[in-house]
């Protein structure tokens, strides 16, 4: 039951590979570059993609998305806006990691030489590094973190209108817009300034200063060079640092219950965002988005279903289209129908779903608020037409064999998954 590729494609790939290795052999590259390339394929490619386009097999599920190295637009730099990063900037992101994202700190696993080799390889992924030079910024000295400087920074926060995106409280309250698009057309949100441990590039005053001094290339966060003096930007950094609240792991006593109440209010304030969070963490995204032969999510069909599961003895189940399409998605389902199916496995026509592959017995314990948010999020998904065929029973022999295995031998039914979109047919 292994999916076979047409042999011609395999052959063509082999020839291309052969050609590549010949070319590689002729151009005797420095040892570190070759080493960096293999390290990159082993360590980085599963998220950043084999060619560095940020489209690795896990990329579709990650938020924020892995960096696209071919664009050479890097967020965390010590160079002028729009400029390339220095080698040290790239090495820092690798060794320190990007906080609160899937990018780990590689310090325990890669030596300094290996990091340098990977940096050298990453730079070959964009032609810009061959023709341009990074333009490092000149910055003044870090001021002391005094209340006076923080107060001066608060005034800069007002003058520069930071609150337009980040909100007067740093959490988006009063912000004109909360959703933005990055250079790749993907939705992104202004960082919560009250949660410094989520500052991807670090939460020291210097790290914070660098973000508004250099801007974050590829995102709507601009450089504020010229809009304020260097000293003012430093004061702003001191102020933003003071906005941070205590993280959960440092809280004691009643702080925890206050925190959870706060989180609930926050969720109610932005139901769709919270629903998206629930969809991501409870695995809706994984199974209701089909994957191609290279294991990468088929992005136009995100949430449009079509992933095939074979469960012996019950047959083939195709994950349903969760988008708001009237004909083939949840557009014509009522809120109650969605909730009943999610928590009880009962379809609108009254038939029941087995507890595989969708683990609805677990979702039965989902809180009412989370369920409401999830429905609100599913309603907000743009309609994608992808007609999902109903479950199909296997042939009678495997059906009986599977039932024997399940009911007499008391084994769980095996679940098989298949790549590609099984929807779309009538």
């Amino acid at each position, binding site marked *: 039951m292994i999916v076979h590729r047409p042999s011609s494609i395999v052959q063509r790939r082999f020839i291309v590979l052969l050609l590549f290795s010949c070319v590689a052999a002729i151009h005797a590259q420095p040892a570190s570059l070759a080493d960096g390339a293999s390290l990159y394929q082993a360590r980085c490619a599963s998220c950043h993609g084999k060619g560095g386009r940020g489209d690795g097999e896990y990329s579709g*599920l*990650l938020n924020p998305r892995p960096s696209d190295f071919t664009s050479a637009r890097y967020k965390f730099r010590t160079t002028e806006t729009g400029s390339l990063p220095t080698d040290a900037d790239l090495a820092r992101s690798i060794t320190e990691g990007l906080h609160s994202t899937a990018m780990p700190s590689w310090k325990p696993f890669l030596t300094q030489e290996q990091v340098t080799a990977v940096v050298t390889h990453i730079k070959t992924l964009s032609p810009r590094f061959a023709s341009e030079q990074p333009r490092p910024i000149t910055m003044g000295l870090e001021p002391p973190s005094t209340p006076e400087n923080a107060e001066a920074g608060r005034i800069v926060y007002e003058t520069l209108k930071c609150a337009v995106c980040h909100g007067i409280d740093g959490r988006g309250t009063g912000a004109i817009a909360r959703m933005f698009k990055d250079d790749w057309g993907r939705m992104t949100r202004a960082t919560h300034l009250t949660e410094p441990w989520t500052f991807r590039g670090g939460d020291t005053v210097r790290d914070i200063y660098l973000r508004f001094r250099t801007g974050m290339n590829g995102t709507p966060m601009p450089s504020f060079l010229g809009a304020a003096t260097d000293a003012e930007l430093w004061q702003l950094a001191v102020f933003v640092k003071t906005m941070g609240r205590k993280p959960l792991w440092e809280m004691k006593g*009643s702080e925890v219950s206050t925190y959870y109440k706060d989180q609930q209010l926050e969720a109610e304030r932005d139901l769709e965002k919270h629903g998206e969070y629930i969809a991501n963490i409870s695995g809706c995204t*994984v199974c209701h988005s089909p994957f191609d032969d290279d294991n990468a999510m088929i992005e136009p069909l995100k949430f449009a279903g079509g992933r095939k599961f074979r469960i012996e003895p019950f047959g083939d189940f195709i994950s349903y289209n969760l988008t708001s399409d009237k004909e083939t998605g949840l557009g014509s389902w009522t809120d109650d129908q969605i909730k009943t199916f999610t928590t009880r496995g009962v379809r609108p026509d009254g038939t029941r779903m087995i507890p595989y592959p969708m683990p609805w017995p677990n979702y039965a*314990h989902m809180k009412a608020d*989370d369920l409401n948010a999830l429905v609100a999020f599913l309603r907000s998904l743009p309609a994608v037409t992808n007609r999902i065929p109903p479950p199909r029973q296997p042939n009678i022999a495997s059906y009986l064999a599977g039932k024997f295995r399940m*009911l007499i031998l008391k084994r769980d039914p*095996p679940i098989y*998954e298949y790549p590609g979109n099984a929807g779309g047919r009538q």
Partner: protein
Amino acid sequence: MKRFLKWFTILVITFGVLGFIAFLYFIPPFDSIAPEEMSRPAAEAGPDLSAIADPAERAVAERGRYLVTIGSCGDCHATPGPQGPRLKEMYLAGGNKMIRKGHGTYISTNLTSDPETGLGKWSDDDIKRVLRSGLAPDGRPVQGHLMPWPSYSNWTEEDRHAVVVYLRHTKAITHQIPPPTADVTLTDPAAFEEDYGGKDYATPQR
């Protein structure tokens, strides 16, 4: 008489086989169980958190339990038994086989607080790293399609912390899980089929 006996035996066997097939065909495998009954084990399994003295820690652990439940951790990290998954007595002890063709065979790991065979000796950061970035403490990459860490990577840092706090409160169960049988970096795009099995594959304890 001898001939009659022979035919009688054949008839009985034929009816027996046919009857057994009919029995297999007609008994409903699950429809007779109410949805509430099916979802109850997920709520009943797991440690008694009311024993935690500090109410703050209890609130965090309860949040962790909620995330572990709706994140369906217990489905794969269940220990299969002769009467189905042993959700209660082997809560999160692992041992379920998962195959990804061309990528190797994996046995779901022991998530209990057991120091030798579970997560007892892992640091908080080790657990958070595998949930956030799919890297084991030794740097080995974790297969993200069988263990969907890219999904759990979306947990906020504080929710991930709650999960760690909760896992620390699970009952320690000694259940040695063998390592994956193939190099996880080995990839063959043509081989995708995944199999989630149903037998306890833990290493027997001597």
